[in-house]
């Protein structure tokens, strides 16, 4: 295994939930907390802690606004997050290729 392929691996995506959150934000301009909860079928606390983790890694950005006087929290992926996710995808693809070769 060369260093080149190891580079793509990102610990932030160890967790399935964080990986799914990032997948959703790759193809959606923005996504709100409640829609995440409904799609991923997880509890508030669990979701919030993983969102926090991604936010601290600067992979996502939080945007708070109001929709008909109710607070609405939406999440947006950052350039850094999208790059890391792409690298992680490349890493997975390379793993698959290697497994086929061996």
């Amino acid at each position, binding site marked *: *295994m060369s260093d080149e*392929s*190891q580079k793509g*691996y990102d610990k932030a995506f*160890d*967790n*399935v939930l964080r*990986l*799914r959150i990032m*997948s*959703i934000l*790759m*193809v*959606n301009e923005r*996504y*709100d907390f409640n*829609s995440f909860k*409904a*799609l991923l*079928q997880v509890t508030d606390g669990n979701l919030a802690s993983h969102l926090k983790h991604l936010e601290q890694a600067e992979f996502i950005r939080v945007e708070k606004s109001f929709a008909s006087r109710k607070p609405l929290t939406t999440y947006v992926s950052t350039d850094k997050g999208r790059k890391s996710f792409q690298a992680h*995808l490349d890493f*997975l*693809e390379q*793993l*698959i290729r*290697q*497994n086929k070769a*061996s």
Partner: protein
Amino acid sequence: MRFSIIYFEFQSTFKMKTPEEELASIKSMMERSTRFLSLSGLSGILAGIYSLAAAGLAWYWIYFPKSSWSDGTAILSFRDLLNRMLLLGLGTLIAAVGSAYFLSKKKGAGNAQPFWSPASKRFLQSLFLPVALGGFFCFALLHESAFELIPAAMLLFYGIGLVQSAQFTLGKIKNLGFTQLLLGLIAAFFPDFGLLCWSLGFGLFHVIYGTLMYFRYER
């Protein structure tokens, strides 16, 4: 190889198994978050049946006992006929949208998918903008007494709506959209066949595509 083994061991504690499964899970999340996948095929079949019944009734009111394509177009001149046609059209629309709503909601509940999601909102927006504009355009045609072009306009605007919204729902809807557009163009150039094209597009092809969707995604 060493690193990939470590990777698997590491992942196994987090319930993820192979990189293939991980990629599949990523793809599925991307699909489910952008596409409204609860659209029910059964509702397409029902919409087709309502349309065929409505087209039969319209044919009976306008052309009976002649066929609409051998004896030229009948001209809508009676207020009574106009009112009946408006009510019939509205009734068919409400019945079709109603069944689509209830059946899709039911299908979504079965898959634990919420009916209102960012994906379903995008789907409805992209479908209903052309459809609503088409509706207003048909009222303009009615106002200008260009009755023979109404089936063509309905087919064309609905076709555009389907082609545009296909990217936010089951992708196969796009082909149904192209079918409607083709029938719409035929109806525009040969208005005598307007009602026939309308029955084929809104009736027969809804039933065909609804059946295909049902067997492809719901069985």
